[in-house]
């Protein structure tokens, strides 16, 4: 664990350069360039808002569905995009790994960092929409770094795990896409957990993502802070994921060069 922190710090410049490269390449030669990073979740938000506030309305307090949705959709996009990029990060950099002696952890970490930049930028339109819709701009926004930290730790753990698995079985990248789609619907993103009777809610609480997302939605939409058990649960899940993911990654990293 200490090794992870030490190496991340040691290779911070490389990780940062790789993350910027990732972003640069993703939006190169597109007219709107970096704006796509912000437009994508916004367009998805528009469609979902249209469906769930007019076609089949979902009852939520205060009625600002767009903000209700975005407060969780944005962190979920950070999570799913990080995984989507990181799962290919070892295999995709195979040429490099075979020719340069480099710490392997920089690749999945850089994928998470580049998506983190995306996420932080997407908070700007969220803030603008909040103001435009006349939704109160809660002081609890300053609490956001806490769920973000937990989610980042969790995401890192998951990316390590999937990046390793994909080295050995390339199916993993495809399986991941299906998993992310399922997760999108079983996590309260487009709906609220309160819409379900209390005695069924425990089923949703088996999904670790709910604890991170809870923090985002409460602070951005409701202006509340999550209860202590929920915060603790989020960090426990996060650290379990990271310890397990990095353990697997460390165990196999010397072997990557033979399989990529």
């Amino acid at each position: 664990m200490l090794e992870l922190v030490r190496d991340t710090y040691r290779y911070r410049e490389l990780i940062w350069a790789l993350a910027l490269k990732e972003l640069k390449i993703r939006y190169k030669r597109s007219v709107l360039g970096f704006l796509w990073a912000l437009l994508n979740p916004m367009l998805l938000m528009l469609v979902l808002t249209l469906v769930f506030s007019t076609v089949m309305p979902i009852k939520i307090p205060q009625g600002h569905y767009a903000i209700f949705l975005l407060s969780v959709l944005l962190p979920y996009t950070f999570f799913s995009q990080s995984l989507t990029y990181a799962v290919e990060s070892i295999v995709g950099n195979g040429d490099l790994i075979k020719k340069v002696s480099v710490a392997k952890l920089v690749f999945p970490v850089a994928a998470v960092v580049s998506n983190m930049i995306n996420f932080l930028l997407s908070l700007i339109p969220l803030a603008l929409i909040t103001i435009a819709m006349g939704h109160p701009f809660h002081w609890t926004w300053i609490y956001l770094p806490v769920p973000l930290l937990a989610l980042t730790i969790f995401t890192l753990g998951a990316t390590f795990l999937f990046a390793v698995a994909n080295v050995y079985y390339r199916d993993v990248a495809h399986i991941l896409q299906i998993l992310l789609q399922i997760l999108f619907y079983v996590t309260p993103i487009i709906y609220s957990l309160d819409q379900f009777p209390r005695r069924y809610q425990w089923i949703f609480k088996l999904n670790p993502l709910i604890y991170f997302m809870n923090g985002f939605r409460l602070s951005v939409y409701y202006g509340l802070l999550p209860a202590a058990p929920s915060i603790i649960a989020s960090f426990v899940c996060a650290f379990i994921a990271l310890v397990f993911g990095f353990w697997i990654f460390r165990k196999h990293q010397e072997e990557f060069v033979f399989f990529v």
Partner: protein
Amino acid sequence: MLDSNIVVSVENVTQRFRVIHERPDSVRELFAKFFRKPVRYSDFEAVSNVSFSVRSGEMIGIVGRNGSGKSTLLKVIAGIYKPTTGRVNVHGTIAPLIELGAGMHSELTGRENILLNGLLMGYSKQQMLKRESKIVEFAEIGDFIDVPVKQYSSGMFMRLAFSVATEVDPDILIIDEILAVGDMSFQQKCFERLREFRRAGKTIIFVTHVMSQVTENCDRTILLEKGRLILEAVPEKVVEVYTGLVCPEVRAPDERADVVTVGSEL
């Protein structure tokens, strides 16, 4: 020579690769294999029990036929492969030129690539920015430095890559056949750079198929054959033995396919 002068020591290094004949590349195949026979594989020893050491300031040549384990050995020294058994001790920074432009990304500009490459080799951003102008100067790419490298000619690309790898001032330089590429003037320049390196007392480990490069430049030469170190001697001696190894093949009618490659490399 004192032991403290040894900068690279290779001790009983064996590098084994598992060659899996029917590697289940996907879960579907894995399931299919699960119910039938186990996966077949064989172990292939690319490098067998090789030991040698390189002293500071030496230029060591490594020669051998295709598949004799030269590149694998270099990759073990560069830290890309962890040896199956044995140990490699390296004192000082290594710049491995296993392939020119390995860390280059075609969409990034020359300047961005210089930084990324340097960081990949373990140098800091500050160190790279300091050397940037010298790198650009040696590579002779002028205004193209801010153009994505995919628009470079292959010559420009190689000059930039060589320039980055050597301008970072490593203690030990590892070169794998790369000097076979590029035009005459570029090759001249590369060798001039290598001589500068030697004058500065740096160490070079050098793989090539061009025997004249070995005899002209190396202090000592190692001959590999089927992964084993079979001779370590002065270049002239090694070239003689190596030529003897290769030449009988030239006459063997059943190995004609090899003749063309080996012959042209000589």
